[in-house]
């Protein structure tokens, strides 16, 4: 007994979702993290709290509001329809939107910490060498913040792989479109297909462990060298 074609489809879909979500989050999260790390604004606390909300909110809360907001009667749904994108619930793009929200703190927080750790000194030095802001960012900040990007990528990806509650709420459990591994496991358990559930669930445990092991091992090596 091993993975069924349905299981493989769910695995493929989950990896696609996690990769897309992580890429989007790195693009959107970097400026947010940079702003949070640098701003003297009083709004910093508010934005920081909003970014961290998914850490404490039950996924069903997130999923419920997304279902209402992105539905035909919601603001988001009317917007996506006006833009000609149609409605997002029950679609892969809808899952990406939900996952981006759900995994935001796992990407933004490591980046913010990495940016804060750089401090102002390297930026000032770069400025005295007449480096423009963009030049400074790509030539100085990005290389120095590299460990933060590695952590953010790994955590964002792994956390999205483990997503369940949000998908259950807005996914619609459609094979090859929205049925991710966690939902497939749930279905197996409900249908009393425990052997198949074990294969997938055990796979998730091993995957999660290896990801975290890689993360901690690389951190230990860095701090030893550094």
């Amino acid at each position, binding site marked *: 007994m091993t993975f069924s074609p349905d299981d493989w489809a769910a695995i493929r879909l989950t990896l696609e979702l996690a990769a897309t979500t992580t890429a989007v989050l790195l693009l959107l999260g970097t400026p947010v993290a940079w702003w949070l790390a640098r701003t003297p604004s009083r709004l910093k606390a508010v934005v920081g709290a909003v970014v961290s909300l998914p850490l404490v909110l039950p996924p069903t809360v997130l999923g419920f509001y997304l279902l209402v907001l992105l539905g035909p009667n919601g603001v988001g749904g009317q917007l996506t329809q006006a833009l000609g994108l149609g409605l997002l619930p029950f679609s892969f793009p809808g899952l990406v939107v939900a996952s981006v929200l759900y995994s935001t703190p796992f990407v933004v927080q490591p980046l913010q910490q990495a940016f804060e750790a750089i401090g102002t000194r390297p930026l000032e030095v770069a400025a005295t060498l007449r480096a423009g802001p963009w030049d400074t960012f790509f030539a100085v900040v990005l290389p120095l913040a590299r460990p933060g990007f590695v952590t953010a990528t790994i955590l964002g990806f792994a956390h999205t792989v483990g997503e369940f509650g949000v998908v259950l709420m807005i996914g*619609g459990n459609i094979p090859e479109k929205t049925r991710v591994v966690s939902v497939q496991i749930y279905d197996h*358990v409900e249908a*009393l297909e425990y052997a198949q559930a074990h294969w997938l669930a055990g796979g998730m445990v091993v995957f999660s462990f290896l990801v975290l092991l890689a993360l901690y091992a690389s951190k230990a090596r860095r701090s030893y060298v550094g």
Partner: protein
Amino acid sequence: MSVRLSARWPFRRLSLVLSLAAAGFGPLVASSAARADEVSVAVAANFTAPMQKIAAQFEKDTGHKALLSFGATGKFYAQIKNGAPFEVFLAADDETPARLEKEGGIVAGSRFTYAIGKLVLWSAKPAIVDGQGEVLKQGGFDHLSIANPKLAPYGAAAVETMKALGAYDALSPRLVQAENIGQAYQFVASGNALLGFVALAQVVDETGKLKGGSMWVVPPALYTPIRQDAVVLAKGQGKAAAAALVKYLQGDKARAVIRGYGYAL
């Protein structure tokens, strides 16, 4: 220090409230506490509304309290097999209770049919669903919500219906599957699916009147009857409240509620 303070104060207030309550209502509590008991009930999602009403009447008439949990029948089965503390189980089918009976998980002879479910095609919008279900063949919608047919009897009945109409192959790309019939309803109610197969009891009030939108009551000939069986589980053995609830469910008052919501009996 501050933690200890804040932890102590509410307790003081609570104990004050409790002693006041005991002084005021002591005689009342004592007289009913002698017989009144609690019963934990797992209820199939489609039976939520009628069961809430029945439980309220049951509490008033007998003094016993029914603690209700709502969800998918398959999930309840797995939970019960793994030691969930339910004493009575109102399933959405007759197979799951029969299975539990065969496995010795119920009080012998306690299984009975409490309702026969009816499937409806429903839209939250008026004038979408016609009286013959023709809308299924005409299309013009993106999503049709059903309960997961692998897990929920109403989902299986929905698939049977579509197959009987010869519309299943055309419709299957548009199906969205909910975890249970409660979520199938939610997909339609939130407007994300224009149509959905749900339980009649979810869309009508206690007099059988449609609460909103439009519906087609699927003719029972198109699907296997959804016989919903109830059992007293092993954990309810010898418990007065469990026995009382099961008896109450078979009484005239409860049956009137069940019929009111459009179930057959």
